[in-house]
């Protein structure tokens, strides 16, 4: 495995961008060229699942339809993630521009930003920026971006639940297939990308694929924006090259007493100190949507897990059995073990249950509960019992 040194990058927030010019240049290229640049760059989605962005656009463009949409997923509900907020606050033009490029490639006339309910305070500035943007691009493309407010459920960040919510229905994930590239918003082919993904796509248009591809590893190209929180002296937003080993990260951000790092939020993995060195941050190791939460030795990992499970128990949409009931059983189960009402071996049953949830749940939420559960129970078993 190739380990990278920790390296700070300054692509996304760099204030050198004349979006209109870059768009003009990009629009002079053919759609195939743009898609090829994206494919060449190796950009993968930053929303969690890591699907190659170029392919997503290509599939959507190729899907026969009278109408297509591009949607920017700004629901940012993962605990410990706040980087999309920063991006929308600091460089909204780059987000809009990324959407405009996508719109050109797939032939969308309308785009939507699905904005997390709690980010309502961003609205006035976003609206202002959007008005200006619409005005700037009207000579380039017939494309309009609308903002749709989310209503506070974590599950509405899941793409198909997001479409349901946008269509005025209850935010419940759909069956897949069909995937959004075939039938997304209003059952039309839809590109849905994370805020950050769209900005990187635009950065790739601006700088060419090579500048992006040079960064990171073969499985995880480029850089990424991290939200660093927890027991760190310097919490905040950092753009870092992908592929570094986790111990490098801890060296930079830890407080000297780091016990574990939760990579990827509640849906992610918990990496204990002894495994920091061998763990790579990226799709070949532990992937992350951006949340990096550092825990020092004062933390009870039982409490950490309990918190996550409480979150899932409440935020599951509740439609499918493994997730709805599984979450309740996991939390009640570790409580029972802690209180001595169940023997420690019950943890093995719970691990099996989390495995079933991973295999049998309908969407990514239920499927990913096992990540934190098995990594915390697996690495901190004693803390669960005593």
């Amino acid at each position, binding site marked *: 495995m190739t380990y990278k040194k920790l390296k700070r990058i300054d692509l996304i927030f760099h204030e050198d961008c004349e979006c209109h010019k870059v768009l003009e240049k990009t629009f002079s290229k053919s759609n195939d060229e743009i898609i090829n640049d994206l494919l060449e760059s190796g950009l993968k989605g930053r929303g969690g699942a890591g699907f190659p962005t170029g392919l997503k656009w290509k599939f959507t463009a190729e899907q026969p339809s009278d109408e297509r949409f591009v949607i920017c997923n700004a629901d940012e509900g993962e605990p410990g993630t706040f980087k999309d907020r920063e991006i929308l606050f600091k460089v909204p033009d780059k987000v809009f521009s990324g959407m405009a490029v996508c719109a050109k490639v797939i032939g969308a006339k309308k785009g939507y930003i699905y904005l997390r309910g709690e980010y309502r305070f961003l609205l006035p500035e976003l609206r202002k920026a959007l008005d200006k943007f619409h005005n700037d691009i009207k000579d380039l493309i017939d494309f309009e971006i609308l903002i749709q407010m989310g209503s506070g459920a974590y599950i509405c960040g899941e793409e198909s639940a997001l479409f349901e919510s946008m269509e005025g229905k209850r935010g419940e994930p759909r069956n897949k297939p069909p995937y959004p590239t075939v039938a997304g918003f209003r059952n039309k082919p839809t590109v849905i990308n994370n805020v950050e993904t769209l900005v990187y796509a635009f950065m790739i248009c601006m700088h060419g694929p090579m500048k992006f591809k040079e960064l990171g590893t073969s499985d995880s190209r480029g850089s990424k924006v991290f939200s660093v929180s927890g027991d760190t002296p310097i919490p905040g937003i950092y753009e870092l090259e992908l592929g570094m080993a986790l111990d490098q990260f801890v060296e930079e951000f830890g407080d000297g007493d780091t016990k574990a790092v939760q990579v990827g939020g509640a849906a992610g993995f918990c990496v204990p100190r002894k495994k920091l060195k061998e763990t790579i941050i990226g799709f070949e190791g532990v992937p992350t949507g951006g949340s990096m939460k550092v825990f020092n030795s004062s933390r009870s990992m039982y409490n950490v897990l309990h918190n996550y499970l409480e979150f899932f128990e409440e935020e*599951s949409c509740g439609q499918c*059995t493994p997730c709805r009931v599984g979450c309740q059983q996991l939390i009640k189960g570790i409580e029972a073990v802690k209180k001595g009402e169940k023997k420690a071996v019950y943890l093995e049953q719970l691990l099996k249950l989390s495995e079933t949830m991973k295999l049998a749940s309908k969407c990514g939420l239920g499927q990913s509960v096992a990540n934190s559960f098995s990594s915390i129970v697996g690495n901190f078993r004693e803390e669960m019992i005593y």
Partner: protein
Amino acid sequence: MANINIKIDGVEVEIEEGKTILDAARAINVHIPTLCYHEDLCVAGNCRVCMVEVKGARALVASCAMPASDGMEIQTNSLKVRSARKNVIELLLSEHNADCTNCYKNKKCELQDLASEYKTSGEAVYLDLVPLKNYTIDDFSPSIIKDDSKCIRCQRCVRTCEELQHVSALGVAYKGDKMKISTFFENPMYDVVCTNCGQCINRCPTGSLIERNYVDEVWDAIYDENKHVVVQTAPATRVALGEDLGMEPGKVVTGKMVSALKRLGFDSVLDTDFSADLTIMEEGTELLTRLKKALVDKDPTVKLPMATSCSPGWIKFIEHTFPEYLDNLSTCKSPQQMFGALAKTYYAQKKKINPANIVSVSIMPCVAKKFEADRPEMRDSGYKDVDYVLTTRELARMIKQGGLDFGALPEERYDSIMGESTGAAVIFGATGGVMEAALRTAYEIVTGREVPFENLNITPVRGMDGVKEVSVKIEGTVPEWSFLEGVELKTVTAHGLTNAKYVMERVKSGEGAYHFIEVMGCPGGCIGGGGQPIPTNMEIRKKRTEAIYMEDSGKPLRKSHENPEVIAIYKEFLGEPLSHKSHELLHTHYKARQRY
């Protein structure tokens, strides 16, 4: 569409592209358990018991929701599948108030079936979550009981109410561990737009939605020596009852049903078909009268199109959703309620029984009829016209409780009076039946000739199409009805409230110009009613329908106006259709209800 080849448990299957893995498995008789899946509904994919393993896929897939694709290799029973499925069943049980011996659905429950297949140890694997939940039972309604502690949240009921009925009385509320099936503002079913059609009951896999049963009350009445208990049986019951007593769908069991009812101790076993014939006389005359007022008298207040009023689910639907069309409803009561009003008047007089001592019971394919019998409008005899309504299912239960070997019972005839009927009444049980029966009589009144269809079978109004528009040209009228000469009588027939809504919206927009509308609230008409044996699906409903038409064609009399008992009741008691007495006993008006 092209065909594709897949492999299920090592067996090659060729199947149409677009079909699911579940379809493919069923085609080769591989049994995959399901809970949220129902043939009549769109796919939900939420219970996850139908999971299978697809070679190369990271996770298991829900076979009900996953389209088969060429070359797929599927295992339905691998270690991974079994262990996940067992876990899912255990999870469902851990949330479930599994009080089977006290449950109305005991031995008729899909969750119980799965538990009996998959549970091998006597212990629950997971913690019992039931004590932590504030499950509620809604038993305010005379028709439906909703017990959340028995709910597995498969949302079949939600989809039923939304897709088949366009009522959406039930929805999903809250999320996570609190997620539940609920009504608007969690009001009782009694207080919301629910039409009591019972279609959700027919599709609920557990005991979470059931009819309110009156079995014990009816036994008490039977055992009470001071009571004279009369029972009427609706047309559609006789083609479905057998299913709950071990017979194949599509069997006509009229004679055995009569025999069973007599053995159970009912004092007089009579037929709703009699009052169905009567309904045709009243409703047919009402239609012709309205046409006359509109065409000859040019009366602007007369309401056309006229719509049938025998389906109480449809009545409540129109009260909530199209109250501005209430006057378009025929003023006729449903056959059940006509029968009830006559049982405690005409019948009581003829039999010289004090109506206060008559208990009138009806056997119905319907749950809404329970609500209907409770309506304040339905006391024109001076008493509650119909005391207890039992569903086909409840009757099957009584027959079992009575220890009767149903299959071995002889065929017996209905008692008299009010037991005689024609084929026109029998077909009330299927969508299009009232229309056909009305046309058979009305056409003959107007022209003096039989309807111009072979063997009186008006086939265009039959069948499972949701909306059937049929025009009948009236020619060669008798002098009294000559104003109808050459008139194209425009009719439309709809079943299931989604189709009814579509028709009403066409009426509203002016696109649908009709004279006569037949609506049955349930898919397929009463044969698919909310009180019929479970399960239901298109195939079963078709078989019941075929049985209905078989019963019709085998009847010596097939036109309502030829029913001798109907002729007699007009002579002895009612006078003529739409007489003052008829209006008093057989007609009513309904009032608008709020949507919320």
